[in-house]
């Protein structure tokens, strides 16, 4: 009896592990395994197809000597930073506005949210038209009589990356809005009352009390936005094609171009390793602190 009961017990404690085991294995193999695989390639001399030899750090040396790589890295910083910050701000403000007992809130919320339903390919294509000086906004405004109006970011090598930010924000800020709205709806209304009695005005209450309390919301949003920023590949391809020139290249497009169209898989792998390391360096400490704090 004792024996059978203890074996039953062990099945009981094993079962949950068995249930997550597939995911665990999948994560290990298909994420971390592939990362390692990629790391190996970055030390190989692979060109057209993967080759499993040892070439030392030569790919990294090539990478660091490559101007285009540095443009791409810088673009990711600019794009990622602006995209995330602006999405958070826009999403937050839209949520705050919608939280003011707006009529037809449901419809407006859907309008803000629907871009999330479109693929970046579609988003990129449409924005490419709208932002094109000869087709879109600039032409329209000029035809309305403002001849000197100029809005040519898309075709301006210095500004093109901001159009990517614009389209990205258009697509993703609605999601942040939904998250923030959810967060705002969860705020203890007594806290707001307390602050009003303390003499605070609504803007002050938002600034000092409600928004600082949305930490977990921003955390969730940040995870999703980072994920989207890294996957912005499609958007850039469709919107600017990395251009003008390679002015809007980002590491993802860089890596893709070198690995797949230019037959320099080793170099592409080195680029993606750098990208992964950057992501890990930023996200892991944050994740760690957040998860630990949650646990308490």
């Amino acid at each position: 009896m004792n024996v059978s009961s203890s074996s039953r017990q062990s099945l009981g404690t094993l079962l949950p592990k068995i249930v997550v085991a597939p995911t665990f294995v999948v994560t290990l193999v298909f994420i971390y395994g592939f990362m390692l695989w990629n790391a190996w390639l970055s030390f190989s001399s692979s060109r057209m197809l993967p080759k499993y030899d040892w070439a030392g750090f030569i790919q990294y040396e090539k990478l660091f000597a490559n101007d285009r790589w540095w443009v791409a890295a810088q673009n990711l910083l600019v794009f990622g930073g602006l995209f995330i910050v602006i999405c958070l701000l826009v999403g937050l403000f839209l949520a705050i506005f919608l939280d003011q007992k707006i009529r037809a809130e449901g419809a407006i919320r859907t309008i803000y949210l629907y871009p999330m339903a479109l693929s970046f390919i579609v988003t990129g294509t449409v924005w490419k038209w709208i932002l094109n000086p000869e087709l879109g906004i600039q032409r329209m405004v000029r035809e309305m009589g403002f001849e000197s109006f100029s809005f040519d970011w898309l075709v301006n090598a210095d500004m093109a990356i901001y159009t990517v930010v614009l389209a990205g924000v258009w697509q993703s800020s609605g999601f942040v809005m939904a998250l923030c709205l959810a967060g705002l709806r969860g705020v203890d209304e007594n806290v707001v009352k307390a602050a009003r009695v303390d003499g605070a005005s609504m803007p002050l209450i938002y600034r000092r009390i409600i928004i600082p309390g949305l930490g977990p919301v921003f955390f969730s949003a940040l995870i999703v936005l980072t994920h989207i920023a890294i996957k912005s590949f499609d958007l850039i391809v469709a919107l600017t094609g990395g251009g003008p020139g390679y002015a809007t290249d980002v590491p993802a497009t860089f890596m893709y171009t070198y690995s797949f169209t230019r037959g320099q898989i080793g170099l592409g792998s080195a680029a993606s390793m750098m990208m992964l390391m950057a992501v890990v360096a930023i996200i892991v400490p944050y994740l760690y602190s957040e998860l630990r704090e949650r646990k308490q």
Partner: protein
Amino acid sequence: MSLSRVLIYSLVLLAAVFYLLPLFVMLMTSLKDLEEIRSGTLLSLPQGLNFDAWSKAWGTACTGVDCNGMKGFFWNSVLIVVPAVIISTILGALNGYVLTKWRFRGSNLFFGMLLIGTMIPFQVILLPMARTLGFLGLAGTTSGLIMVHIIYGLAFTTLFFRNYYISIPNELVNAARIDGAGFWLIFFRIVLPISVPIVVVSVIWQFTQIWNDFLFGVVYSSGDAQPITVALNNLVNTSMGVKEYNVDMAAAIIAALPTLLVYIVAGKYFVRGLTAGAVKG
């Protein structure tokens, strides 16, 4: 209405116009003929309601050697999306359930690993995945593609469910355990029935992600099993030939219709589901 209300309403409406603009352009363009597109501006209204481009995109446009439009590919996508969404949601739910209600040593670490997994750029895994699929004998099959979508959707579905389940009191599980229920019974009878809000979130998210996926679709599917995004891409990307923008736009809208519909119909539940728990880190 006070001044501040007026201000809020105008900002809200202005934002709405900004968000609607691209959809408006797409719609207008799809309703024009090529001549109008060449001569007019993006925002000008079409001269009449002309659905030729739509019927062409749906039924007769060429994507490769077949000129049957998008309709076949539409169903391909459905065949891929439905199982992938269902399976990844179920697995995510189970993972979330274990990670919150049946914790074990290292379960938090596992979750952290999974979260980092969401950050991996998909371009990186294209070749290793191809190799693995070939190894498994799934290369170029629909099941292979479904598997890929499930694998890379798991991190997010798990995240959603974990954050939701963390707000469900453990006492509920304990009560059921004492009532004699085991792991599965508790999951199916107690936990799953109260997961509707987060299931909606997970399904909408996964549906959108998988339906809109192009990269995996193009690389891991073959021939007439390709999803609609690949067909859209083939239709839109004439490398050397005449571009029919109206057909392109109609096709783009057709490709986006299911996800749009999902957001319009279930958007309310989406926000509600997020409120119900996805927000809590």
